[in-house]
């Protein structure tokens, strides 16, 4: 069911990318898709009844099925931080576009050939 939630969020993000004319909304839609994909990747590693993959006193021994899959978590951990970096680049590009074309709305930009 988490799969369904993340897929619907991806669909909403695609819809936002296609309908909105404001470039800021495009950035927000991309960020929504980012979060949704992260949720999807984590969900592929979930094991029913599993624990967080950290060795403790009460979970001393290894046994298959006691822990959830740690590999997707390690991938998503880095992906989230990269998401901030790319979002900051996009936001700074928006500032420059606003200065040059006096608008961030796709249809109101000045000096852009149709």
């Amino acid at each position: 069911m988490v799969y369904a939630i993340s897929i619907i969020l991806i669909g909403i993000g695609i819809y936002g990318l296609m309908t909105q004319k404001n470039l800021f909304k495009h950035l927000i839609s991309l960020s929504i898709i980012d979060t949704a994909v992260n949720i999807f990747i984590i969900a592929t590693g979930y094991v029913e009844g599993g624990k967080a993959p950290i060795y403790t006193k009460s979970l001393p021994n290894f046994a298959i099925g006691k822990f959830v899959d740690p590999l997707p978590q390690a991938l998503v951990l880095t992906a989230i931080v990269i998401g901030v970096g790319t979002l900051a680049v996009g936001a700074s590009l928006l500032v420059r576009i606003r200065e040059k074309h006096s608008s961030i709305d796709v249809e109101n930009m000045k000096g852009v050939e149709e």
Partner: protein
Amino acid sequence: MRRLYAILVGAGLVYMLFAFLGTISPYGNVNLSDRVSAHFLAKDVNSVDASKWVSGDKQIPSKMKVFGKKGFEDGSANVVTSIVVNYRSFDTLGEVTVLFASAVGVGLILGGTRRMRYGRKPNFILRVSTGILLPLIILFGVYIFVHGHLTPGGGFPGGTVIAAAVLLLYLSNEEFSLNMVVSKSLEGSMGSLYVIFGLIGLAVGGAFLFNFLPNGVVGSLFSAGVVPLVYMTIGLKVGSELSGVVAEIHEEREG
């Protein structure tokens, strides 16, 4: 018309992804013995015969290892940390490079010299509470990345918490601006230190980013070899990089 078209395309994509769901294992019913992750969890990656994996033979780890004893392949209690910093450390090096590129990109696009003013006096509560909370926030960030091999957390969240402290300084003080020389030099030196750790591992153990320090007892603070050191460099690097992004987004050009 445009909305109808967008809804059609979005619905088609959602249908395609739902159809794709049938090819992967259902939610919560993952069999870890089918995946390589079982060996990451059991910490016996070195005993895996790679040619057997390629030909499709599953290898199930059998040796039990007990918390609080020596003899783990990698001494960190948090398995996610041992994957990020030890088993797949090369990925992390690439990731840090991408983050560096994005920080440079923000600096190049926005290259300003003067700090932007919000044009209003900061709230009294914000100004006073920043002085109280700022040391606590920085302490929490440092705690997160020093204990990354024992508890949830690590260099990436610790660095972002430190960047959030810098953001709080920017919000509460109109005159504050980050010393870019300090942040850039910290970032560069920490990035090179990561590569130097990798090269020392190459010289000592014969593999790039090899874990060349003794592993120690699982669960104690001084354990897991180079993992805490590498996570400290990653934490300081990510913290200074994101602080630099926060600082640069507050700068504007003259005139």
